[in-house]
């Protein structure tokens, strides 16, 4: 059974058609294949994540999904700072440093869509004073926002 019902899929298709600008690559890092399950890896969650992203990527020519193994593509995982899976890297030419760890379902499905659109447009909905204040920061910033699907 699909994750998205036809009405939701159509709504997202229209939103993508009107809001997406640059093409977006979704890099999905998955657990090791071949029946080798590492401690802490949850194949079921990874599989659901893969299905969700597959359906989302089908809704616009500007969104493509690429699948990587955490171990089989260790160099790519290292380049994008991925240590745990499932993890999604959002690229639109530039790597804005946005990652999603886990399954973007429930309320967080909206977060997934908003991140795709923001990365595609190359800008976030931030007020000008906020942009100026962030531009003045002297060092690197690593934000981790913990969420749950409900």
């Amino acid at each position, binding site marked *: 059974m699909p994750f998205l019902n036809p009405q939701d899929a159509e709504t997202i298709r229209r939103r993508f058609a009107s809001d997406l600008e640059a093409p977006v690559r979704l890099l999905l890092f998955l657990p090791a294949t071949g029946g080798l399950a590492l401690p802490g890896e949850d194949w079921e969650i990874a599989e659901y994540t893969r299905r969700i992203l597959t359906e989302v990527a089908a809704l616009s020519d500007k969104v493509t999904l690429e699948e990587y193994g955490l171990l089989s593509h260790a160099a790519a995982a290292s380049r994008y700072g991925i240590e745990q899976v499932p993890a999604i890297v959002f690229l639109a030419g530039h790597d804005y440093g946005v990652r999603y760890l886990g399954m973007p379902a429930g309320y967080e499905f909206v977060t997934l869509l908003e991140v795709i659109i923001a990365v595609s447009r190359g800008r976030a909905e*931030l007020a000008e004073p906020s942009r100026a204040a962030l531009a003045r920061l002297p060092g690197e910033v690593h934000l981790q926002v913990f969420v*749950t699907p409900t």
Partner: protein
Amino acid sequence: MRAEIVEATEFPDLARRFNVYAVPKTVINGTHEFVGALPEPHFVAAVARAVGGEGDEGEVVGGDATPGAEGESTPLDPGRNHE
């Protein structure tokens, strides 16, 4: 700048490391944190405090809400991440 959204229940080791008992919880550079959704100027100020180091109160721009006021948050399932 790196921004990660983390499903707390799927990554219990990370949730435990940062004492996540309610969501949303934001951790900045592993050292500074707040729970709930902050108005944008206070979010920016919290980031500035974390990057500017201890003792720097940062600068709240364009906002008039009470600094340090926490936004709404939802407790995680009791019994999770308590070890």
